[in-house]
């Protein structure tokens, strides 16, 4: 069991530490959570891309990165995620532990300080970030958005999300829109920085072998100089399905077409959430799931066909890559398999095997710092935080009837097809 130490630094800012001695590395992450909105998504993404470049102490890209290489190739990087209707922006630092270095140098503390420096002491020119840093950061974010078009699986899922949630903030990308990135100024980035430090919900997670008191003090000191205001509120929207299905398609010059189905689960309470998680795995989450065995193995229609549940938004996405002429057949088969679960056409054995598969995957989380970090970051906005073990035991307590009930609450909402041009 992971023992987690928790401290509030100030209103809306929390730091936690799990001391884990089995690893030779440690990890520190700093995540801000803000409501996802078209107005701010792009500038926030650009801000984090700007921050990861350098800091006042190491004021250019090379000197900052040289410092990291000297700290045994420590890595500091930013990432953007969507958690329900929140934009979560993280700067993570990973380094080897002090006792594994050649010279027993204090790498973990030096890296913690660097992480705090890039967040609290960035390179500014008055009330603006430096133009050249912002220009580079904007290019990075723009190219990240453009590159999504390179991977058709990611692209098709993104398009389905955009179209299905065009009236909800969940339809907004965690990187914002390319045209919004274009318009951002160095002054906008500064405003976003002040706003985030002042009003975002913030979670700092230290994992591994840190001198926690010092890390805690480091961030407490930094925040004592920040004027914190009222913390931004989040309102997660989980809509029930209406039963009305919308269909969308795009054309592209592809070898293989993509099919993405968006289904609403209307998740109501904790029990329902765990039942839906289990139901989705039975439906399309394992190599013995209904989708794998039928759409792939029995009909040989595709190489992949899988279902994933986003518990924060109460939505299941089914994704597959198929021939254009098999589109309808695949769609019908996928929905038929969901109906089978709705009717209870699955054995206790199948259900138990799925539970075992999920439990083992949850247990594995403890063997990776990245996985532990992600696990806790994804629950910061939740009312209740589960450890992987508790989560597993709750999944294991779900009955067959609860799975059937969860399946019967699932409603197809959106069908998205990426089709071949000129066919």
């Amino acid at each position, binding site marked *: 069991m992971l023992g987690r130490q928790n401290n509030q630094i100030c209103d809306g800012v929390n730091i936690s530490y799990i001391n884990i*001695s*089995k*690893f*030779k*590395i440690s990890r520190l992450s700093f995540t801000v959570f803000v409501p996802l909105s078209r107005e701010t998504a792009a500038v926030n993404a650009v801000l984090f891309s700007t921050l990861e470049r350098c800091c006042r102490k190491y004021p250019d*890209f*090379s000197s900052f990165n*040289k410092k*990291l*290489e*000297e*700290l*045994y*190739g420590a890595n500091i990087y930013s990432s953007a995620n969507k958690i329900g209707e929140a934009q979560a922006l993280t700067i993570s630092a990973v*380094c*080897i532990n002090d006792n594994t270095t*050649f010279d027993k140098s204090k790498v973990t503390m030096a890296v913690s300080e660097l992480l705090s420096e890039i967040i609290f002491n960035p390179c500014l020119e008055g009330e603006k970030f430096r133009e050249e840093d912002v220009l*580079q950061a904007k*290019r*990075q974010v723009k*190219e*990240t*958005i*453009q*590159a*999504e*078009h*390179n*991977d*058709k*699986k990611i692209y098709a899922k993104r398009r389905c999300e955009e179209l299905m949630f065009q009236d909800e903030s969940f339809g907004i990308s965690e990187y914002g829109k390319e045209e919004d990135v274009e318009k951002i100024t160095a002054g906008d980035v500064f405003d976003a920085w002040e706003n985030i430090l002042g009003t975002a919900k913030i979670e700092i997670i230290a994992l591994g072998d840190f001198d926690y008191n010092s890390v805690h003090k480091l961030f407490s000191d930094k925040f004592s100089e920040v004027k914190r205001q009222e913390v931004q509120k989040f309102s997660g929207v989980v809509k029930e399905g209406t039963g009305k299905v919308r269909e969308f398609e795009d054309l*592209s*010059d592809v*070898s*293989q077409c993509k099919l993405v189905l968006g289904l609403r689960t209307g998740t109501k309470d904790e029990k329902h959430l765990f039942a839906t998680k289990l139901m989705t795995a039975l439906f399309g989450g*394992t*190599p*013995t799931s209904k989708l*794998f065995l039928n759409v792939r*193995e029995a009909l*040989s*229609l*595709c*190489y*992949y066909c899988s279902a994933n549940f986003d518990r924060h938004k109460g939505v299941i996405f089914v994704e597959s*890559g*198929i*021939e254009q002429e098999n589109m309808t057949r695949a769609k019908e088969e996928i929905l038929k398999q969901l109906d089978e679960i709705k009717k209870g056409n699955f054995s206790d054995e199948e259900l138990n*095997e799925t539970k*075992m*598969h999920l*439990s*083992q*995957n949850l*247990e*594995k989380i*403890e*063997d*990776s*710092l990245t996985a532990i970090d992600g696990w806790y970051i994804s629950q910061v906005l939740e009312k209740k935080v589960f450890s992987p073990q508790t989560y597993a035991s709750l999944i294991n307590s779900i009955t067959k009837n609860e799975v059937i009930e969860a399946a019967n609450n699932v409603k197809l909402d959106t069908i998205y097809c990426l089709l071949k041009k000129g066919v």
Partner: protein
Amino acid sequence: MMRLKEFTSESLGEKYFFVKHPSGLNIYLYPKKNYKSSYAILGVNYGSIDAKFKTKSKGITEVPSGIAHYLEHKLFEGEKGDAFESYAKTGASANAYTSFDKTAYLFSCSDKFQESLEVLLDFVQSPYFTEKNVEKERGIIAQEIKMYEDNPDWCVYCNLLSAMYKNHPVKLNIAGTVESITQITPEYLYECYGAFYNLNNMSLCIAGNIDTDETMATIDKNLKYSKAFDTERILPEEPLEIAKKEIIQNLDIGSPIFQLGFKENSNNYKANEKDLVCISIILKTLTSKASPMYEKLLNLGLINTSSFDCEYMETPGMSAIIFGGESNDPYRAADVIRDEIEKIHINGISEEKFNWAKKALYGENVGGLNSVSSLANSLFNASLSNREIFKYINSICEVSLDDVNSKIQNILKTELSALSIVKPQ
């Protein structure tokens, strides 16, 4: 009980065990204290480049391309059922892959490890190919091939290899083509299985929460002894020159990507630990975010931080160094890289750069000792390349600037470089 040979890294407090089993199988066991999970990989020294081979009984045989990969898919199906069904009963997550020179079957789990290991050993040693089950797979593999045809990262890589190599089969797609796989039959699959899936040609690497005695007993009980191994790889002569300097493909994508590859002179030669350390340090000084080349490429808007990378690749009969990523101007990016390489050929690497690159490489490798999957995979790769993972880490500590600077003279020859570009239509 077989005597296990212990390999240790005293400075890091790490150890693993090796034994050459009487059946011929190389076994590596890396117990990790306090870990919840385990990871096992059983691999064969056989991949897509082995479509032509020689055995004592049959002489030279040639088979359709893509067969190693097809075989990997088909091994999961046995007479009594599918291996995935057996894994479902133990709760493990299983997978497999085929590369140019390896085929590997793996699983990870946090419970019932011995049962899952039995499943792995059983299905890899029990081929069962019928007209019907081979036919069934064709549609699935065709879709896998088509999925890769839309993947620009994969296309840019395959195109680069086809530009660099005139004869070596790395220029051919690992999974074959939708056309070539139509020729695959149960007979071909049995023939290739018989030629290469021999315990003398395989390694089993396990890392994680395991008891070595119990694990050895399970392995011992489940191995089927193979006949003597006499299969020889047949690779064509490959001239040193590249086939062509440039290759371009258009795809419906958002941003152009490129790879610049340097063909290395390495017929039938595998780098040892020290060579590999030298190459890695040279590549770090060129492509680390702290390097002048990286900064220049970034400031000129020629690369981005999320995609630029470089790798050293090695399979029998070839090795290459490849730089690449997304770029709005691949030609200029390639020019900058070639220029910087010219510079280090003339000036060598400075002591300052050498020092940080060495520390960074060490840190990266210590980082790799923390995940059971990367440990088992490193052991597997090292096993097939005759390298030892702790010796590699020690070489990082011991390597000198002179070693590195003399290595530079033999690698990254501009005249042996080729550029591959995939751009939006």
